[in-house]
């Protein structure tokens, strides 16, 4: 028995069961949620050096599994990361019960999640690029189901990710050579440039971001949010693997200022662009760009403890995206569009959906009392330490989401018809999950110390990366 068998091969086996029950959508969603959460809880509470005893026999759960000469390694330190990936999968499977998304989603998500875990666990890690590419290919039918038009967003998503793939593959090869190469070897420059271009394309870093808002505009918000929380979070951790592994890479001169510059630019430009959006889906895409900017900024602020805030930002982000995507998904299902011009004054008839949407946006923006605030506040403080101008740009970018949320609020309240009575048209099945997640958002915002510090354990998987608060 080995941990890769439990968290990589077992879910793939589950996916077969889910595939067989795909016609029963609700059952499939519930089973997907159950399997994912069981695996997530198991990863959270799995003891170190676990040995199961049966009388005189014992069963040891090993960290390593060897397949075709390559190793898959999931150590005790990696388990927090694994649990996070399965929690995300579980909660998004749970949400899929409310939507008419692809009936293959629960089954495919149980292939995608273990492939992501495998990408983070495989040695040599040039194979990780291949796993990620397979995930991208699997995601296309889910993001663009057979009954929907093929949009520019989905095509660009495919093209940009596919173009990144050779760069990561080449970087993987060059890095394995650079390990033993002298300091002035051309391999080092080639690996660095390939890695930078690869991640620029994969993480939708400006100016390679055009696919992201187009995708969130056209794809179902539930599907796009699933991939856009799972992939960037895993890719950032994948990038951390490179930094952890190679001392020369993390000690490159100008690396951290570069991270800070890219992060700040993404926050500022994302904030400026979100301001002018007239489509709620597209605005969600720009908010994702801003969030990636915050993650990269945390990388750049590593010497000031930025990585702690990166890891603690994952939970508020997950809660915020869940709520945002849930409300957007319901609005899209109801009105068929997320364009402002096609939406009525929602607050008058759907106060819970519109309220949930606004709270999600404010939480991601980092308003006090909500989940995003405690960590964002710390990032704002430390971002000003190396350069005060950085903090100014971050402030301006954050203001972008605030002002956009205000615009959404005005649109949802303002009505050309004189509406005198406000009514609630959502059913309890929609109201209850919104209230629960809003409650969790407020709870995390008020008592961050109870939940967020657990997530810093993710960094245990990267023991060589200097995290010096």
């Amino acid at each position, binding site marked *: 028995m080995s941990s890769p068998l439990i968290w990589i091969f077992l879910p793939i086996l589950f996916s077969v069961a889910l595939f067989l029950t795909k016609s029963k959508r609700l059952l499939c969603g519930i089973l997907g949620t159950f399997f994912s959460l069981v695996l997530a809880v198991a990863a959270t509470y799995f003891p170190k050096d676990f040995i199961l005893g049966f009388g005189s026999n014992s069963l040891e759960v090993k960290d390593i599994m060897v397949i075709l000469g390559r190793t898959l390694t999931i150590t005790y330190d990696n388990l927090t990361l694994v649990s996070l990936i399965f929690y995300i999968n579980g909660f998004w499977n749970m949400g899929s019960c409310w939507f008419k998304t692809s009936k293959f989603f629960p089954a495919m998500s149980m292939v995608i999640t273990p492939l992501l875990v495998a990408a983070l666990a495989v040695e040599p890690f040039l194979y990780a690029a*291949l796993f990620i590419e397979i995930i991208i290919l699997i995601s296309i039918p889910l993001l663009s189901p057979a009954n929907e038009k093929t949009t520019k967003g989905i095509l660009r998503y*495919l*093209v940009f990710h596919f173009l990144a*793939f*050779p760069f990561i593959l080449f970087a993987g090869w060059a890095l394995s050579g650079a390990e033993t190469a002298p300091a002035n*070897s051309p391999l080092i420059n080639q690996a660095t440039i390939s890695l930078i271009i690869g991640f620029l394309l994969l993480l939708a870093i400006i100016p390679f971001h055009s696919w992201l808002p187009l995708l969130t505009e056209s794809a179902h918000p539930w599907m796009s949010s699933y991939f856009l929380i799972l992939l960037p979070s895993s890719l950032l951790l994948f990038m951390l693997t490179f930094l952890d592994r190679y001392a020369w890479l993390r000690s490159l001169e100008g690396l951290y200022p570069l991270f800070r510059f890219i992060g700040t630019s993404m926050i500022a430009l994302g904030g400026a662009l979100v301001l002018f959006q007239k489509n709620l889906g597209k605005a969600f895409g720009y908010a994702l760009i801003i969030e990636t900017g915050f993650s990269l900024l945390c990388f750049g602020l590593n010497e000031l403890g930025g990585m702690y805030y990166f890891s603690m930002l994952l939970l508020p982000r997950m809660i915020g995206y869940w709520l945002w995507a849930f409300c957007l998904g319901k609005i899209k299902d109801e009105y068929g569009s997320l364009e402002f011009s096609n939406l009525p004054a929602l607050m008058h008839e759907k106060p819970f959906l519109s309220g949930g949407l606004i709270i999600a946006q404010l939480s991601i923006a980092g308003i006090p009392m909500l989940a995003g605030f405690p960590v964002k506040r710390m990032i704002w403080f430390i971002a000003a330490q190396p350069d005060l101008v950085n903090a100014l740009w971050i402030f301006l970018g954050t203001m972008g989401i605030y002002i956009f949320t205000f615009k959404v609020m005005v649109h949802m309240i303002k009505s050309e018809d004189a509406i005198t009575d406000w009514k609630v048209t959502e059913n309890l099945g929609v109201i209850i999950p919104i209230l629960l997640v809003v409650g969790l958002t407020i709870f995390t915002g008020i008592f961050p110390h109870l939940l967020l510090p657990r997530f810093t354990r993710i960094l245990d998987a990267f023991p060589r990366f200097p995290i010096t608060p």
Partner: protein
Amino acid sequence: MPDFVLQIALVLILSSSVISTVIHNWKLTLIALAIQYLAMSIIISTSVPISVVVIKLLVGWMCCSVLGISCFSIKFKDGHGGKTIFSSIMFRILVVALVATIVGFTITNVGLAFSVSVPSATLLAASFLILIGLVQLALTMEPLYLITGLLTAFWGFESFYSILEVSSLVVGLLAIVNMGLVLVGSYLLIKEKADNNP
């Protein structure tokens, strides 16, 4: 391998690239892609084990066949009824010429340093295919031509990468990725046809 064979292969790559970039006809594009797979396989066979070359060639041809079968099954029609505008042809020819000039100049004058020696013919053909693939991607938003553009660019990279990385598992996984891309392409083609004829 005699030099003239390599030269013929290079000419085949150049001419098939011109056809697939300039003429918007799905049959010609797929035939040109199949020729590119063959020509590039000849070029890399000087530095890569023949078994790997054969696998890559077969996978490439299978990709072309799958796309071809999909196009046949949906009775695919090119935009503008298969006709191409003259100014567009001229523009595309100029772009291909520009790419050929840039690649020729870069490889022969600037050169690229790798720890493993890559023959200059492979480097030349691979770089040309990568850039032509990117040009094709930039010039279209039709799923079929996007997929053929991606395959062209990726084949350029793969042929060069196969010299650097010799693992047979990588060869297998790259074959899966290629086939996966083509299946996604076929899915998008069939879906688009269904969208247009609900």
